[in-house]
């Protein structure tokens, strides 16, 4: 009954990465002067479980590495070591290194031995450099307390270990015999078992451990080696490790007078033998993980309450279904009302079910935000700037896909704000601003959208230099007149960089165009608000989910198209006097004080069956996308509905003017319009 450990790897990796994130944010929150021991505890626990997991799965390199970190943290936790900035930096570096190691293991790549060793050395230096001089290890007071002290303090004579496991030790998968065997490898081991605790056979639960041991280990052994062996069980036993001095020896002899000496480690009670076989079985699987690429499978953690709601919904749905089938079985015309109520219920339940299923995919934006404190921390020291990063609304929930895909563009924006936005401290003071710059990351819901803002109180965008730059690069003509908004939009053009000098942080001239494209690919938009000397704000608008869209269906001839509701400004019926022609061809109409181009849907999509060819017969749907407004000329508006977005590209290809497709109630396919694409199309 060998257990395939590989099936747990994915979970382990996920948990470990979560743990690493916890460690990182914990380390960044550490306040040098006044250290919160709970904070260190949190970091320590994360490190401990990563170590535990990696040991179990046989990722020994990770386990060894984490052990060093854990030792350092443990000393900080017990107050035996000052929390210094260097120590924190070393630990942060180690977190990075650990992330790399785990990523490499997950991808089944080779570990980067060099960097691992460097970090290991840094940790060791940090550990030994101070512990030797500062804290002689406290051993005396550890009678019943778990001990994890790594020290160079060793005894020449040996150690006496009193090991009293709790009764449930075996249930946690730990095996005393194996530990003793490991001890025996260190030196000369004498094992004395105390069987006083063993109940009569009738009361004996073979899965409980009733034994305790006194172990005498002779030889020149590092205490840390012993600690390491007991490390796994420290919470499940009472452990006392003492150097073997003359007095201890005497004591031991008297103490163990009524304790039966055990001949060899191999001969043990049945229950331990049983667990031994179990642990053996897990070994081969733990050797080296050979499994298909795990990177492709992704999982999601869902709040149990969400699942409960879902199950409730399904229950309701089943009830409605059985009610409806009852009505259907003996249907007569007088049951129409019953049928109607049933259908209404069905509709409601379906909608609610849909909502709760969507809800499962929602996760808080903090998954993305959490990486930024580190980024700000690293960058501000690199750039010699003083920067405070504020996170607002981290609990705003968005679809998992959005969370995954928005992360890179956001990093880019935040990096830009830190690098180009915020001025050097001296400049800030000169400008009458506080020395410390503030970058705010804020997320909130607005309508069916989530808005993510990256706001800085830096120098803001300089319209004149933007314009100058664009002219230099030949992106616009000298004579081009641009509104403020259009000027800011320039930075989204490919090959445009405002940085006066390139840094390795940002400003390579690629980027903002990629950012915008990524955001557009998510069905979102990005907008810039900036004021010279006061700061700038990048606001990203994203749909909550990529799977469903609120749409307005429009008719053009016998074709039905869906316009995203969010991009519709209004719909108007126009009269002849509103229409103007530019150069005899381009049609515009005047809506209040604005002239907007008219895009005739039936012309650009070549729909021959269009009913309305005269502008007065149809309707103009005023739409807006990426700052461009236009009027779509259509036959008629059909109705609003939520549509499920289906990819056109999965089996087909991208079509200009169309973002994706959906399936209507009658099973037919309707195309969802891409407004900016339509405008481009009509300009051709």
């Amino acid at each position: 009954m060998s257990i395939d450990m590989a099936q747990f790897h994915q979970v382990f990796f996920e948990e470990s990465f979560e743990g690493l994130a916890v460690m990182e944010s914990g380390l960044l929150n550490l306040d040098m002067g006044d250290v919160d021991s709970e904070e260190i505890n949190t970091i320590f626990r994360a490190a401990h479980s990563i170590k535990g997991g990696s040991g179990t799965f046989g990722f020994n390199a990770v386990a060894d590495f984490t052990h060093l970190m854990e030792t350092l943290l443990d000393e900080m936790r017990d107050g035996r070591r000052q929390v210094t900035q260097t120590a924190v930096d070393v630990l942060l570096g180690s977190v990075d290194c650990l992330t790399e190691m785990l990523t490499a293991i997950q991808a089944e790549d080779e570990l980067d031995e060099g960097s691992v060793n460097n970090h290991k050395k840094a940790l060791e230096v940090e550990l030994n450099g101070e512990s030797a001089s500062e804290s002689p290890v406290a051993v005396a007071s550890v009678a019943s307390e778990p001990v994890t002290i790594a020290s160079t303090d060793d005894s020449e004579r040996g150690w006496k270990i009193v090991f009293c496991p709790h009764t449930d030790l075996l249930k946690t998968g730990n095996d005393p015999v194996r530990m003793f065997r490991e001890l025996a490898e260190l030196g000369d081991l004498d094992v004395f078992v105390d069987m006083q605790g063993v109940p009569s056979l009738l009361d004996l639960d073979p899965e409980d451990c009733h034994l305790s041991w006194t172990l005498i280990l002779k030889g020149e052994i590092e205490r840390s080696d012993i600690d390491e062996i007991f490390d796994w069980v420290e919470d499940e036993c009472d452990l006392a490790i003492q150097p073997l001095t003359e007095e201890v020896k005497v004591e031991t002899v008297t103490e163990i007078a009524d304790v039966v000496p055990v001949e060899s480690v191999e001969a043990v009670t049945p229950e331990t033998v049983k667990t031994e076989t179990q642990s053996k079985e897990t070994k081969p699987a733990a050797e080296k993980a050979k499994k298909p690429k795990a990177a492709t499978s992704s999982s999601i953690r869902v709040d149990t309450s969400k699942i409960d709601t879902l199950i409730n919904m399904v229950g309701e749905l089943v009830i409605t279904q059985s009610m409806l089938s009852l009505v259907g079985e003996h249907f007569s015309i007088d049951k129409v009302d019953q049928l109607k109520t049933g259908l209404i219920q069905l509709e409601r339940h379906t909608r609610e079910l849909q909502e709760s299923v969507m809800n499962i995919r929602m996760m808080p934006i903090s998954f993305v935000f959490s990486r930024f404190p580190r980024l700000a921390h690293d960058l501000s020291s690199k750039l010699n700037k003083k920067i405070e990063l504020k996170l607002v609304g981290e609990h705003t929930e968005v679809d998992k896909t959005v969370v995954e895909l928005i992360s890179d563009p956001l990093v880019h924006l935040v990096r830009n704000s830190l690098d180009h936005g915020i001025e050097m401290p001296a400049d800030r003071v000169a400008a009458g601003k506080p020395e410390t710059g503030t970058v705010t990351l804020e997320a909130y819901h607005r309508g069916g959208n989530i808005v993510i803002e990256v706001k800085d109180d830096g120098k803001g965008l300089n319209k004149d230099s933007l314009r100058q730059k664009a002219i230099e690069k030949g992106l616009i003509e000298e004579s081009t007149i641009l509104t403020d908004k259009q000027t800011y939009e320039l930075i989204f053009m490919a090959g445009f960089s405002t940085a006066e000098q390139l840094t390795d942080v940002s400003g390579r001239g690629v980027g903002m165009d990629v950012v915008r494209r990524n955001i557009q690919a998510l069905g979102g938009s990005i907008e810039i608000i900036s004021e010279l000397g006061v700061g700038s704000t990048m606001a990203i608008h994203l749909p909550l989910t990529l799977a469903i869209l609120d749409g307005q269906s429009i008719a053009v001839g016998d074709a039905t198209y869906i316009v995203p509701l969010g991009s519709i400004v209004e719909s108007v019926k126009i009269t002849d006097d509103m229409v103007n022609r530019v150069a005899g061809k381009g049609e515009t109409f005047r809506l209040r004080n604005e002239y907007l181009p008219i895009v005739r849907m039936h012309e650009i999509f070549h729909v021959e069956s269009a009913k309305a060819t005269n502008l007065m017969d149809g309707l103009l749907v005023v739409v807006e996308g990426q700052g461009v407004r236009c009027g779509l000329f259509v036959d008629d508006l059909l109705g609003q509905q939520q549509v499920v977005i289906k990819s056109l590209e999965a089996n087909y290809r991208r079509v200009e003017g169309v973002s994706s497709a959906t399936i209507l109630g009658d099973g037919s396919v309707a195309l969802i319009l891409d407004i900016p694409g339509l405008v481009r199309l009509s300009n051709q």
Partner: protein
Amino acid sequence: MEQNASSEEIEAKVAENSVQFLSFTLGDEEYGVTILSVQEIRSWEPVSKIPNVPNYEKGVVNLRGAIVPIIDLRERFNLEHSEYTNLTVVVVLQAVCRGRNRTMGVVVDSVSNVMNIQKNNIQSAPDFGTKVSTEFINGIASVDNRMVMLLDVEKLLKLDGLEEDEVEESDD
């Protein structure tokens, strides 16, 4: 169990030197596609038109929740267009194109047969120069003295525009 084993053996033997094809007609011509690429055979139903695409790309339909394009093979091969009737058949094909599984329906006049063709009976497509495009034809086989043109499904599914996907993403 034993029966399974023996039938598998037979299949293996057959597969060794012959390939199964589904044959269909376009006018007077007979074409074949390897049976493994055929997902299903449906009757023609109205499609949703896609704007600004070549004529032979008829549009898309909803195939159990997936959006699947429909191609008219007659028009694809520059044969004259025929009216769609209830008897017009759509063969749904699938193949792996650039690492992705693509599904597509092709409109044909009628499906005729499933046939075993010996591998050594397949000859390469004759070269007509530029007069006749043979880019989709993998080979030619003769079955009962009829000539069957065997189509390369993967090439067929690579619509003219499909290659451009990557290119398009880098401009704009």
